[in-house]
């Protein structure tokens, strides 16, 4: 017994201590990435021949696909795909984007990849790509996409989320709406603005936009944010933020998704985000093919569909599709509006942006 317990304890401790010799987040499965491309056999195929071949092979592989996603409207896509290919079963793991990234990293470090396709936010996709876990999509559907959706490395944008400034129309009368981001520093907004505690990526984009696109100096941009921060109430979670905005708990939300406001407005809530306060921050959300899929044909079939016919389902859930033209889709962002997407610098500095945003909200000087 003595030895049994001791051994069990040592095994448990040893397993942990020796096993994670490297940081769990950064390592990619060493050496394994160099092997053959599982998608190569289908690269030259197009049209019906491609679809037929993919479908046939997908059925041979077990007629299912393992999808990891943080897309909250994924059910619309799953339903649409099922209608197109009723034979293929979709196993969707749904979680927040951080968790999707953690799960894939963990599984690949253990050399037990469990998913074929990933559908999540740009930051996480970039991280997965930098670990060598994704294979670029080169299929026929790429031709129909906007330029901003392509050339992103191992992943392809399938839709865009728009961060906008939204307000409660009972509390902000017509004509009183904020005209520009800098307006929000006005003391008349004191206690009437809201930001979300985890939105450092929004902060990073907005800050970079001000310095890189508007030519503001770093210190001017910092100063503007500080004056705005003096007016804000901090809340936690976009859903609560959206619900409290509808309920009139504050007048303006600085970083809400356009589709959140649009969905609420459709149900009759007194909220709006147009006329647009520029810039609208566009965040690409994308689909990535895994380097080590268990069902490669099904993975391609899914990606072909999502970037092709599936774009309609994306438009119907009030998101902004990545395809240049989707029948019946009306872009919620008025023509001529300034939009901005993450600069490349944001991905490497996640830690710094997050720390700066934290410091801004607490009203303390930046670290370092």
């Amino acid at each position: 017994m003595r030895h049994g317990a001791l051994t069990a304890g040592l095994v448990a401790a040893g397993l942990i201590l020796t096993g994670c010799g490297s940081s769990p987040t950064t390592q990619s499965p060493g050496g394994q990435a160099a092997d053959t491309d599982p998608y190569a056999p289908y690269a030259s195929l197009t049209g019906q021949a491609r679809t037929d071949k993919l479908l046939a092979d997908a059925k041979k592989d077990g007629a299912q696909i393992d999808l990891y996603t943080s897309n909250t409207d994924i059910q619309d896509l799953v339903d649409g795909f099922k209608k197109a290919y009723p034979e293929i079963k979709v196993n969707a793991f749904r979680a927040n984007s951080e968790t999707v990234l953690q799960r894939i990293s963990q599984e690949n470090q253990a050399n037990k990849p469990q998913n074929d396709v990933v559908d999540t936010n740009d930051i996480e996709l970039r991280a997965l790509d930098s670990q060598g876990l994704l294979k670029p999509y080169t299929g026929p559907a790429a031709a129909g996409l906007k330029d901003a959706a392509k050339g992103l490395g191992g992943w392809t944008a399938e839709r865009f989320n728009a961060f906008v400034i939204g307000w409660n129309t009972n509390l902000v009368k017509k004509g009183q709406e904020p005209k520009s981001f800098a307006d929000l520093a006005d003391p008349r907004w004191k206690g009437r603005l809201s930001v979300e505690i985890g939105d450092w990526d929004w902060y990073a984009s907005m800050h970079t936009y001000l310095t890189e696109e508007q030519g503001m100096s770093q210190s001017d941009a910092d100063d503007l944010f500080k004056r705005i921060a003096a007016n804000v109430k901090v809340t936690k979670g976009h859903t609560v933020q959206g619900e409290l905005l509808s309920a009139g708990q504050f007048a303006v939300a600085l970083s809400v998704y356009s589709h959140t406001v649009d969905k609420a407005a459709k149900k009759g809530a007194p909220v709006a985000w147009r006329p647009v306060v520029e810039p609208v921050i566009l965040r690409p959300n994308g689909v990535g093919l895994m380097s080590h899929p268990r069902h490669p044909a099904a993975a391609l079939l899914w990606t072909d569909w999502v970037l092709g016919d599936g774009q309609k389902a994306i438009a119907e859930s009030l998101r902004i599709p990545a395809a240049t033209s989707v029948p019946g889709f009306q872009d919620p962002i008025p023509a001529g509006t300034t939009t901005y997407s993450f600069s490349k610098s944001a991905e490497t500095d996640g830690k710094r942006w997050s720390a700066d945003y934290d410091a801004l909200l607490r009203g303390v000087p930046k670290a370092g």
Partner: protein
Amino acid sequence: MALASTATAPQGGQGTPGTGASPEPASPGRFAGLLRRLLSFQGLLVGGAVVIVGYLALVPLGYLIHDTFLNSTGTGVSFGAFSRAYGGNSQAGSMMLNSLGFALGSAALALVLGTVLAYIQVRTDTPFKGLFFAASLVPLIVPGILYATSWIFLGDPSSGVINTLIFQPLFGTAPVNIFSVWGMIWVQGLHLAPVTFLLMVAAFRAMDPSLEESAAMSGARRLTVLRRITVPLLRPAMISASLLMFVQSLESFEVPGLLGLQNGIYVFTSRIYFVLRAYPIDYGAAGALAIGLLVIAAAGVLLSGWLQRSSRNFQTVTGKAFRPRPVDLGRARPWVGAGVIVYFLVTVVLPVAVLVYASLLKYYAAPSRKTLSSMSLENYSEVLHMPLAFTALKNSLIVGIGAATAVMLLTSIVSWVVLRTRAPGRRVLDLLAFTPIVIPGLVLGLALSFVYLRMPLPIYGTLLILLVSYCTRYLPYGMRYSSAAMAQMSPELEESAAVSGASWFQTFRRVLLPLMSSGILAGWVYILVVSFRELSSTILLYSPGKEVLSVLIWEQFENGQFTTLAALGVCMVLILVLLVSIAYRLGARFGLQGDSSN
């Protein structure tokens, strides 16, 4: 862990549980004899439970410590994580003070409320006893995020219903502000009071009122009896409850996140939240913060052990039979009854009414003629049409009942080891079983996926890994419930059973477990209920087809469907209340006193 089991084994082998291990005389056959005893049923059972508990607690702890102290090159020990977590502009000191104030306040409020209620429920002839059942469950069932949001709608200084419908018309002021430290303590305290209530009901049940009666007969006044007899006798349970609630408040972020942030009240966990939201995640800093909490929790466990050091003082369950007789409240009865109604209104009716109200709307708005006319059951039909609703309910039930049962069985054995033997290392074991309470859920999830992805057993990707995760997470709670119950048990019961020829296992099963059953059932109910809303580790560990209810809740939440979420919350309250009443009925059949009756 290893230490503890080595020492319990020879002790167990003596066949006289409860008296502690005496040094074994050295003899040639000693090793063989030891081996034989170890392989006895008792040795296996006790040793097995100790090993499992130790293993459950060590896996995440080892992972946490490894990530915290490993330096960036992965070759040596470093304390850099601590300076990243506590140094610079982190305001760690003031945040810690905020956290401590909030946690102490909430724990104190919950302790007072829960104890008073438990006393009224068990020991008086108050009317409306049935309401206690709901009051002890509903705040536990409603997910923290919904409970806190309900209170925002109730207590917002400008638009809250309490201010606009009650104070404004009657007094012309709006004094209630939920976005303050007092508001936070109020909501957290109410949310936690059921934990104390469940623990204290069990403790009062196991207490012989004749001790109080004799004090009263000897001329002690009512207050003196309370101060000198009742409170001291309940010390183990009260200490357990305070410790649990204090550490849980320190570790939670729902209430401070929703209510505190609005006015810039930052707590310790907001640091952890920030660290875990960034990419790449600084696991070292997160670990350093968790270890800070761990130190506080460890101090708490040691303090509670010290406070209970003279354990004979609390042993109220002795060989003497007793039957708790309710105190006749006399003229105070209507007042107490009114108090019960008020408490029930405030903790159950108000928040649930907000949820029900929200679940009938398309989007939340303060009550008006317009909103009342637009009410519909649409959200409920949406819940019923969720493709995964029934799978998730089934899986939640399996994992919840499994975890509650496993934890209570394990911890009742382990609490016996901790309280009844003199095994060296038993304090360490007690401490170890408490550590999971401060480990952030995400870190627990990572530790488990790390271990089970590398284990040949088919655990990863099944419901089993959720079961392991819940068992780990709720181990500290089970341990507090069990040891509070065990501390009231006098060893003379075990001794007389042993004298009458009962084996250790017979004694444990036929004497100890039934006598502890009130406490064990309370812990079981608690774990079952809270496991329904565990998300932070679940979200990383579940697999497609193995969804549980909290994943669905998260999905609705993430999707911005607050009103649908409210409908789901109402359904959950109904299901769990039904489930727990069945559990109490079954418990009553097996010789337990039901909580709703009595």
